[in-house]
Structure formats: structure tokens, C-alpha cells
């Protein structure tokens, strides 16, 4: 009796190594609508109950006119959005970031992130750092956040 050859190989999901990533590559994420629930849950997880995010009455009197999302919620959401949409890097983590909060994210705003690889640097025999410039925009294409992140990526073993 002849056994059928397996039709597939058991491997992990595809991951891109340092060598495969090119300066100038661009990515765009899907959108995500930031809800009141997101802000309430993020206050609970982070412990940041600043009135800016939690006191609707007080915020009626502010320049924003209403509660706004935590800047760090926007930063975290864009990180999740981008990784949901691109073939993941063989990433070991993040080494650093330089980030600016340009405009508020309000309840009901839909944000997405555009990113471009702006730099690559080998840091050791088995890893390198890929710098991504990221722009987070809302439904009116206004920039709400922007900055750079340095992602640590594995080098392909020979």
C-alpha cells in the first residue's frame, strides 16, 4: 500500500525577516471607529481616568466640547490596526518611538494608519532595527497622530 504524500507542510504563519523588508515599502491599515466603550475600557485597563476622557459634563465646557480618546489609546489602536493588515515582521519587539499627538480623537471618529519604511539598520548578527514613519488619520483625512517607531526584526539565519 502506498501512503498519500501530505498535501501541506505544517509551518507557522508567514513572517518577514529583516533582509526581506525594503526601505520605501508602504502599508495602509483598515479603519476602526473609536467608540465610547473603547475609551471606558481603556481607562479601566490603563488606570488613566483623567477627566478629559471620563467626565462628559466637564468636557462640555472645554475647547473640545466633549470627551476625547486617550492619546495612548490611539497609539495602541494604530499599532494593532497595522499588524492586522500586513504580513507580520519576524519581530522581537519595539526599541523606541518618537510620537506627536496632533489632533484629538473623538467618540465616533474612524481612524486608520499609513506607514512607510524609512530606515533599516543591522544591530547584531541576528537582528536589525526597521524604522517605520506612521501617520494616523481620521475620516476627514486629518492627521491625528504621527511619528516613528523602531521595530526590532530577526535576521534570516543562513
Amino acid at each position, binding site marked *: 500500500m502506498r501512503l498519500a504524500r501530505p498535501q501541506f507542510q505544517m509551518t507557522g504563519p508567514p513572517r518577514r525577516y529583516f533582509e526581506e523588508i525594503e526601505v520605501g515599502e508602504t502599508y495602509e491599515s483598515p479603519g*476602526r471607529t473609536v467608540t465610547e466603550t*473603547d475609551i471606558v*475600557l*481603556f481607562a*479601566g*485597563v*490603563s*488606570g*488613566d*481616568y*483623567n477627566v*478629559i476622557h471620563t467626565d462628559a459634563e466637564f468636557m462640555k465646557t472645554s*475647547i473640545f466640547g466633549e470627551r476625547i480618546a*486617550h*492619546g*495612548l*489609546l490611539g*497609539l*495602541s*489602536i494604530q*499599532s*494593532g*490596526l497595522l*499588524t*492586522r493588515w500586513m504580513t507580520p515582521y519576524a*519581530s*522581537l*519587539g*519595539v*526599541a*523606541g*518611538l*518618537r*510620537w*506627536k*499627538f496632533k489632533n*484629538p480623537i473623538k467618540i465616533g471618529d474612524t481612524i486608520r494608519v499609513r506607514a512607510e519604511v524609512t530606515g533599516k539598520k543591522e544591530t547584531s548578527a541576528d537582528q536589525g532595527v526597521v524604522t517605520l514613519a506612521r501617520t494616523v488619520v481620521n475620516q476627514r483625512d486629518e492627521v491625528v497622530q504621527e*511619528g516613528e517607531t523602531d521595530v526590532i526584526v530577526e535576521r534570516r539565519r543562513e
Partner: protein
Amino acid sequence: MSSPAVTYFEDVEVGSRHETPAMTVTQAHVNMYAGVTGDHAPEAGLAPPLFALCLSTGLGWRIARPPLVVIAFMGIDWKIERPLRVGDTVRSRSQTMVKRSMREAGVVVEEHQIVDQGGDVLQHGRFTFLVAKKEALT
């Protein structure tokens, strides 16, 4: 009715330091954070790197001091030195580095560190805030 005590730009002291109580990071924190944000840990047993950064502001609220009247969080310059692991107990330290008066508000720069149970700095960097002035309100 008296308003709760807050710190306006005029009362910010350059050089003042604060250290928060500590919190043990559990798998529940990581799961909730990942569920809310969609940002996941690079591998099992670790917390997503940005989660530690998010704790830096949250832990700050546990210090009994009048909070800064922040108009806007302007930016972050942040370095991640070591992974945050599930089970680590972290606290946040901060120091006011710079204050710069503008016309209607002021810019305040704070150095923040996330420190683990062994005293190692896991992440650190600078937060820049736009803070309200007392005189602008009158």
C-alpha cells in the same frame, strides 16, 4: 462648592520627582489590553511593549497630588530597554525636566521611567504636555 485641587502651569516645579505605587502585571491585563486595542504581545508570557507605556500615565493617578491641568498631550520620545513579563511588578517614576511659558498656556516636559521589582528600568523617555495657566481662566 469647591473645586478639586489641581496644578496649573504656574505651580509646576522643575526638578520635582514622583514615584507611584507598584502594580503586578497579570495575564488578565495583557488580555484586556489586547482585546481593547488589538495590539498583541510579540510572544506568550510577555506584555505588548506599548502596554507598559500606557501604565505610566495610569499609575501616575495613584499618587495623591493635585493633577496637572493638561490641555493636550503633545508628544512622547520613548525607549524600550527590556521586555515587560507577565508577573512583573512595575512602578512609574517621573521628574519634571522643563517648563516653558507660552502666551495662553505652558509646555511641561517630564521624564518617565517604568521600573520592575528588581529596580531595572524597562522603558523610559519624555512626555510633553500643554498645561493650562491660572491667569488664562480669569
